[in-house]
């Protein structure tokens, strides 16, 4: 072992990552002590030799990928599409201001911010409009570098995946070239967006699982076996950490791992103990580590962001107080415990649908509501979503007359009976057996006006639980029910709830599309338009690749069904090992396409074409698989084989042609109106043509 290690761990790793075809013996391990000892002495006899096998075509592919993704990265020097959205978060990271992005986990944003950090970005840019010119302090190139690099690395990953699926070098080359020439993936990689990073981690997870699985037969529990297993888990958690969409691929890999383990169960040569070990290793690497890593992303996020910011209010008051600025400025030097005579504000802990504070003002409830029910006509108590002087209350001991804090202060404890006095109007918080304005089953809460009134005051409240900044109060079984109502008091046109109804509106977008449009690419997204010349960038796929990917999926499904039914009748069209290859390739590629695509039909959020890209990547991998299968097993004669090859060459040149045709809108080269019109192959594409004289 030592000898092998001496031989060059570095070269070994390098060769692995580059070629993946390194002879096993180089890194293999033999555990017999005597042999090891022999070798330890043996290295003295032989010189230290570094042998590395480098797959030049893989290197060439990587270089071409890097060129296609990195070329002219800082053009256009303007905000492109969703950069306007992610840019805000990068700026907040740079300024260390706390935020919560409700659309996804933080790893993706952190990686983008890493780019900004390396480029020395100070976070000072106003991300408000797509197409706005970047100012000089924005390091455009380094902000876009990481996504572009991830996009470029997808190409060697695709190659390796096909090799690990035991398909030929030629098929692997084809898969890598198809990914290389896919316009939509290029466009998506070249900007500060998350999809290319997501796809990179997804492919990495698939590749490492395949490597792990292929090592399984010969060398379980070897170093490389452990490495690839761990890498699977890590890549999965990174994919989930970039976008929740990564969860689909993670689930797929878990299912495949479960299935493989189920087959292992049937293997009678394995002992029960080794099976338990296998199970625990998989559980640790594929469940425990991803969860731990996922949590660590949030830990890093919180550790990085220590200043108060716009999203503080989503979090609990205690958390807000831990941020620099914001609530901490108020609470700083504030007494920890609430005492009789303390002035307090009460915030509804739930914070849903929005955070609000217990509030009162001089307006009274209307005598009669519109539906005819009566009210107490007492002073209104509401829950107000803004900080206001009317939110202040004083805690009073019902047994004492004074409001001042006694010396020493008497703290309010769990179970104490208190009264709450509204600071501005000096009225007591009161509830009585009158139906609440919107929830007739609950009691009304008011501030008690003690003149001209027939009802007795019921203003004693029991403190049930208390925390630093919030109290939860109730009397008998009556809750402060206002806070949980989403409708406003109709009569008092305070705009407090109006914001709420307007908040759920972001469901429509000019370039949103439905999942069904994606297969046929009936939709596109205009990412950027040059203000004067006709140059523009669109998310638009390689028409030829998309169509052939669909055909490949259909052919795969039909052929599989055909084989399956025939095998059931004990007719075997293809040899058993070819069938196994066909099935395992389908599990990954068709499975990956299905899990990344079908769930969108159930989703109700706004969908865009770029949501389809992970599914598309898997579908593209299927094309060379189907082609190789067809040529190996269906083209029997030499003539048909050569015919088939000629067809494949013709088809591939059409893919290249489509790539060339659409590359101007991929890279944003200036185009004349006539050229733009020529590019509009489908009526549903929204290619922006400047109209004259209108």
């Amino acid at each position, binding site marked *: 072992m030592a000898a092998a290690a001496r031989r060059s761990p570095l070269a070994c790793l390098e060769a692995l990552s580059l070629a993946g075809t390194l002879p096993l013996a180089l890194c293999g391990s033999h555990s017999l002590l005597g042999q090891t000892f022999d070798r330890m002495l043996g290295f003295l006899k032989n010189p230290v030799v570094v042998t590395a096998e480098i797959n030049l075509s893989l290197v060439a592919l990587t270089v071409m990928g890097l060129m296609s993704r990195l070329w002219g990265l800082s053009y256009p020097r303007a905000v492109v599409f969703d950069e306007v959205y992610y840019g805000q978060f990068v700026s907040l990271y740079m300024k260390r201001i706390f935020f919560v992005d409700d659309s996804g986990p933080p790893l993706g944003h952190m990686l983008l911010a890493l780019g900004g950090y390396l480029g020395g970005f100070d976070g000072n840019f106003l991300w408000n409009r797509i197409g706005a010119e970047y100012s000089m302090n924005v390091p455009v190139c380094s902000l876009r570098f990481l996504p572009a690099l991830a996009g470029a690395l997808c190409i060697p990953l695709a190659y390796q995946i096909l090799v690990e699926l035991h398909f030929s070098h030629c098929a692997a080359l084809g898969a890598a070239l198809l990914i290389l020439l896919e316009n939509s993936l290029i466009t998506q990689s070249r900007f500060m967006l998350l999809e290319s990073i997501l796809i990179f981690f997804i492919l990495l997870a698939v590749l490492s699982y395949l490597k792990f699985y292929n090592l399984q037969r010969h060398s379980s529990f070897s170093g490389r076996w452990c490495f690839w297993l761990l890498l699977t888990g890590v890549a999965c958690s990174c994919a989930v950490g970039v976008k929740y969409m990564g969860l689909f691929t993670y689930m797929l890999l878990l299912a495949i791992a479960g*299935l*493989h383990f*189920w*087959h292992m*169960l*049937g293997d*009678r040569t394995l002992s*029960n103990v080794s099976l338990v070990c296998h199970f625990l290793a998989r559980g640790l690497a594929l469940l425990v580590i991803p969860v731990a890593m996922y949590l660590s992303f949030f830990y890093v996020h919180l550790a990085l962001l220590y200043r108060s910011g716009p999203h503080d209010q989503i979090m609990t008051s205690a958390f807000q107080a831990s941020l620099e600025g914001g609530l901490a400025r108020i609470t700083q030097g504030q007494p920890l415990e609430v005492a009789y005579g303390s002035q307090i504000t009460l915030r509804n802990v739930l914070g*849903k*649908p929005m955070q609000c504070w217990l509030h009162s003002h001089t307006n009274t409830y209307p005598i009669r509501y*519109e539906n005819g029910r009566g009210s107490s006509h007492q002073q209104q108590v509401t829950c107000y979503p803004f900080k206001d002087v009317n939110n202040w209350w004083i805690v009073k001991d019902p047994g004492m007359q004074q409001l001042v804090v006694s010396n020493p202060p008497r703290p309010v404890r769990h179970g104490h009976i208190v009264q709450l006095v509204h600071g501005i109007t000096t009225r007591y918080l009161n509830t009585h057996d009158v139906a609440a304005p919107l929830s007739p089953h609950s009691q009304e809460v008011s501030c008690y006006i003690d003149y001209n009134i027939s009802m007795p005051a019921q203003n004693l409240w029991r403190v049930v639980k208390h925390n630093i900044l919030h109290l939860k109060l109730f009397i008998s079984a009556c809750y402060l029910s206002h806070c*949980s*109502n*989403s409708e406003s008091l*109709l009569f008092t046109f305070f705009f407090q709830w109006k914001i*709420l*109804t*307007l908040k759920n*509106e972001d469901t*429509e*977008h*000019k370039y949103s599309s439905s999942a069904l449009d994606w297969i046929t690419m009936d939709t596109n997204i205009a990412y950027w338009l040059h203000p004067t010349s006709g140059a523009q960038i669109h998310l638009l796929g390689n028409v030829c690749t998309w169509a052939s990917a669909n055909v490949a999926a259909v052919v795969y499904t039909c052929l*599989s069904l055909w084989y*399956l*039914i025939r*095998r*059931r*009748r*004990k007719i075997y069209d293809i040899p058993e090992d070819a069938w*196994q290859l066909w*099935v*395992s390739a*389908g*599990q990954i590629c068709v499975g990956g396409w299905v899990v990344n695509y079908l769930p969108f039909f*159930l989703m*109700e959020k706004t969908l865009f074409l770029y949501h389809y890209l992970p599914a598309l990547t898997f579908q593209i991998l299927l094309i060379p698989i189907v082609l190789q299968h067809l040529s190996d097993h269906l083209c029997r004669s030499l003539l048909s084989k050569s015919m088939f090859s000629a067809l494949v060459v013709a088809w591939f040149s059409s893919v290249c042609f489509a790539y060339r045709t659409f590359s101007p809108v991929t890279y944003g080269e200036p185009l004349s109106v006539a050229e733009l019109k020529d590019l509009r192959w489908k009526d549903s594409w929204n290619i922006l043509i400047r109209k004259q004289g209108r």
Partner: protein
Amino acid sequence: MPAAGGGRAGPGPLRQRGTRRLQGTPPASPLSPRPPAGRRAALGLVTLLSFASRFHRLPEPPHVCWDETHFGKMGSYYINRTFFFDVHPPLGKMLIGLAGYLSGYDGTFPFQKPGDRYEQHNYMGMRGFCAFLGSCLVPFAYLTVLELSKSLPAALLTAFILIFDTGCITLSQYILLDPILMFFLMGAVLSMVKCNSCADRPFSASWWLWLSLTGVNLAGAMGVKFVGLFVVLLVGLNTINDLWDLLGNLNLSLVTFGKHFLARVLCLILLPLTLYMAMFAVHFAVLNKSGPGDGFFSSAFQSQLIGNNLHNVSIPEQDGYPLSCHCDPYPGGLCRGEGIYTYLHKDLNNLWIIKKHDSDADSSSPVEFVRHGDIIRLEHKETSRNLHSHQHEAPLTRKHFQVTGYGINGTGDSNDFWRIEVVGRRAGRLIKVLRSKIRLTHVATGCILGSSGKTLPKWGWEQVEVTCTPYVKETPNSLWNFEDHINPKLPNISLDVLKPSFVEILLESHMVMIRGNSGLKPKDNEVTSKPWHWPINYQGLRFSGVNETDYRVYLLGNPVVWWLNLFTIGLYLLIAISTAVALKRGVQLTSEHKGELSRVVLCGGGQVALGWLLHYLPFFMMGRVLYFHHYFPAMLFSSMLTGKYWMLGEATWKIARGAFQILDGHFNSSRSFYLFHPLSYGMIGPMASDPSSPMAGLRWMDSWEF
């Protein structure tokens, strides 16, 4: 064979059933020592108890309970033959209506709100019908479990669990769709199981009978509620399994296999489909008078209803200037007033006059026809203001533009111009009443007139918001058609030519139902029942009465039964997994034990557990409002699983055998039934939170509200 194994659920049962079929006869179970006479007696006893428990105090309470207000009302609609709209398919309500009709109910009770007293109206027929179907569930479950497990104690336990479940009793005693749905569902499962047992003598009379009965019951289940789809799935999966087995049996020629295949297509696809369409045909044939459901359907359909203002009228076919028309967003909804809202009912404020954009056509000029692509103005007839839009945000949908009425006596500005376009037509074509789906594009801003589907608050009379959307997308919300059309200069046509075909009506009604179902969204902050509440019996449903003096009925499962079910599901999972692993690892067992284990645990239990999953899991993905009673179909399956589990205990672990669990189970369920029976049969007096109430000690969970 990894792919094949991965592609289907549980390879174990298949192989097992396949071998069973090869043997020719089902193995005579060693566990059925009792003679058939005893079984018949048990069946009689179970049926008797079931009917007794469901019909006990059926007339109480003599007022409308919970959803009776809907389904009773819809039964009355059938008797009165007025057209209505509901989100469920028609069979259940038709049967309720039929039961009412046969028992002499005249359809005059209004069913306005829960708590209304029936007085002299005869409601017992409808309740009795539902209770009858609800009572049939118990013998069905008994027979199913008997067939699956061949064990009398298991079947008896299942039956007693269902007899003594307060929830099932409550749900069967009122005019609801659930007993009808569950009847068909259990019927389908029973016939499927029976058909599987006949598998050794295919194409015999009983085989055909059970196969076609399965199809009939499937059609029934689908025809009552769309939840019936889950049992269709269950039967479908079972059929695919069956066919897969047959295909793998090389003794069968392909011709025989083809016969099997065609028989199933005939009985399980074509027969149910025909029946399903037939019930819609009956539905539309019976409901021929205009009623509250008209506005949900297209204008062409409405013209077929007696009493609708489109019925038997004749209006000019082509639109000309000037004219008055009713514009109607393609599925239901009209426009109105100065604030422009769509209004789901029809009135005079819905009339608009079409004018050319540049001139006021006076009444003497000859008729000009409106063509595709013309630029027009729409003047509101009552207030003489023009339909107008501008770049201000709409009241609710802030990304859209506001639409208003503008100008005095028809004079306005260029923001009043709209281009009229017919969907799928070329420029210059005439626009036809009712049939042309049109789109109105605002000339100045390029936006499209549509209704956003949101209800305006009180100031907007709770009507639907109309906006002008700048997103040029093809959605039904932005399509309109001309409905009323008044123009004295044009010849009138009769609307009979527009009569839609039955298939069109069928498709349209399904679109409307699907839209209605997805429209049942919970409001913000509304406390709704969550699917995870259900198996743990977390919270019930108030059927009737809130206060102490009311006659209260509370839908809540018998907690002992439900928690036993829950426990059994967990136990079943454990046993199934360990059995599967043990079999896969080749643990040394006698072949008899092995067969028994895989048959009981994986095959029979698997079917029932799959049924439970199929009727439960999909609710987690549903966005609509959910209620506790949605769980009851799944609960039937979990009860059957409970029964079967005890049978398993009997078969494999002899220690667990015997009277202890069985008697204990029976005893527990009947004793707890005695404790909780007031939930179903009604209670009066103080609430359970009051110590003086008879139910005082029984509020085991704080979330129960009785």
